[in-house]
């Protein structure tokens, strides 16, 4: 199921929280939703789920959410790790959520086992840790095996093993033809997980493209060279119109070329090379560069 977001817009009083956002979430792919704190990610998700009112529309295979039936077979959402009644048992919570899609008790037990909560199925979640709350929220979202999965910061509070499990689970879930839309602050994790990214800052769209395109978008890739003859190498590169700059005393940083070309030039000119490395920009580098100007709440005071 393809999700198409068209011109979403939302004001909270004088604050323009979401500004004319348009993007799509494709089936069979994990789409990461990134943005600094206060950038409007959660508001956007709520608008997409018709939980908040605003302008614009979100279509699921061309239909609005209200036209889908049963909704939970089409869309599942996990928006907060604490969205449960603390005295309603985990099993009863899922049984309640399974009403619309007529989920069987066997399926509830299966999902509880999948998220590792089978031993606390009859316990009240008031005493659950944040990680357990995340698991219960995820269980509720995937209960009816929806074609689109919305997850807001699902990795918060999870231990490394659980994060790895979640990553594998979501990749497999998407691989079976479902669309997964997930927001997270864990950029390194998102780099491993997401196929596509949607980046917003101050409610505005910064990027909506594949992860690969996004990573090459900013500074792109650099070739790092260490050599006892860096000045000579720099001159030869300059003769070929390639600009290189020093990074410290012993390292040369070259942009816009492949490591193969740099190695070839060094070899032709008998220059000894101690290190020749391709350094890709990380998601964090690109994210920080692109969202810096639109960061609503930053360390050291508001913008």
């Amino acid at each position, binding site marked *: 199921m393809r999700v198409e977001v068209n011109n979403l817009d939302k004001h909270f009083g004088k604050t323009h929280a979401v500004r004319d956002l348009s993007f799509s979430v494709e089936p069979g792919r994990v789409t990461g939703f990134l943005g600094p704190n206060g950038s409007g990610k959660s508001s956007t998700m709520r608008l997409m*789920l018709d939980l908040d*009112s605003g302008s614009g529309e979100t279509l699921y295979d061309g239909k609005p959410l209200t036209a889908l039936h049963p*909704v939970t077979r089409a869309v599942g959402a996990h928006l907060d790790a604490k*969205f449960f009644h603390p005295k309603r048992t985990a099993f009863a*919570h899922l049984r*309640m959520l399974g009403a619309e899609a007529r989920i069987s008790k066997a399926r509830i037990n299966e999902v509880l086992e999948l998220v590792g909560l089978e031993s606390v199925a009859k316990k009240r979640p008031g005493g659950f840790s944040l990680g357990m709350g995340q698991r219960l929220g995820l269980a509720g979202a995937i209960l009816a095996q929806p074609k689109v999965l919305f997850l807001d910061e699902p990795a918060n509070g999870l231990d490394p093993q659980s994060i790895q499990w979640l990553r594998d689970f979501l990749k497999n879930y998407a691989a079976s033809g479902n669309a997964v839309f997930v927001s997270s602050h864990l950029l390194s994790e998102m780099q491993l997980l997401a196929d596509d990214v949607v980046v917003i800052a101050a409610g505005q769209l910064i990027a909506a493209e594949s992860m690969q395109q996004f990573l090459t978008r900013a500074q792109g890739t650099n070739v790092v060279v260490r050599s006892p003859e860096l000045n000579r190498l720099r001159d030869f590169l300059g003769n070929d119109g390639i600009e290189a700059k020093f990074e410290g005393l012993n390292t040369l940083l070259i942009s816009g070329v492949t490591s193969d070309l740099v190695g070839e030039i060094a070899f032709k000119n008998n220059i000894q090379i101690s290190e020749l490395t391709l350094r890709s920009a990380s998601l964090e580098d690109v994210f920080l560069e692109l969202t810096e100007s639109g960061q609503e709440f930053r360390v050291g005071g508001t913008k």
Partner: protein
Amino acid sequence: MISALVFEWRRLWSIRSTWIMLISYLGSIGFFGVFPLFSAREPGMQSWIGLYNTSYNFFSLVLLSVIGAQVFGHEYRYGTIRLTLTEFPKREIVMIAKSLVLLFFVTFSVLLSWGLLGFLAQFAPEGTVTSTAEGFTFSPNPPADLWKVLLFIVGYLFIAMSVVTITRNLALGIVIPLLMSTILESLLGILNQFAKQKFDWITTRLPFDNANDWLGDGGLYQTPGLTFAAWVVGLYLIASVMFFKRDA
């Protein structure tokens, strides 16, 4: 619609407080209704209709109003309204399902309380409850028709539910109807007397004073009954509109 009713039914009965409140309600009815029968010194001190009227003493109303307040109160307090609305994006379906389940719950609880009262009264000293006795209630009025008692309790709980939906505060749904019915309306009446009845236009239109008048005598379409109904319907409509329009 059926799935929304199932959802709401499971939501209601899967928390302990529903059971606790229902049992406490029945317990309080049993205590307030039947206990006096066993301490009666003379036969014929209570009528059957008076006995069943004890199902709406103010203490039991508070207990039941907790359930009315929890219909939306828990949803807002714990954020589960967002799960509910993700599952049922058509909000009118949610409102109708919650209202119908609450209506069923109140009717079931009141009928159960009458059954309990009737059953326990069998063990009272012979002749204590008769159909000819004048009987007593916990309100200043003579015993009301039972259909009126049921409608009043339904109205009271819908006011509690509506107040919570409007304020998004569970406690206010219990406290506001309670304060209005026990203190505030009497206080306004006293203040109006000091003001030489200048505020009659307010004090004659208060919900629970009118409900009391209506329970005391008259038929379904008397002005006090309609005034109380207008409050219930009015608050319910305001709550519905706010629920449909506001962000979850």
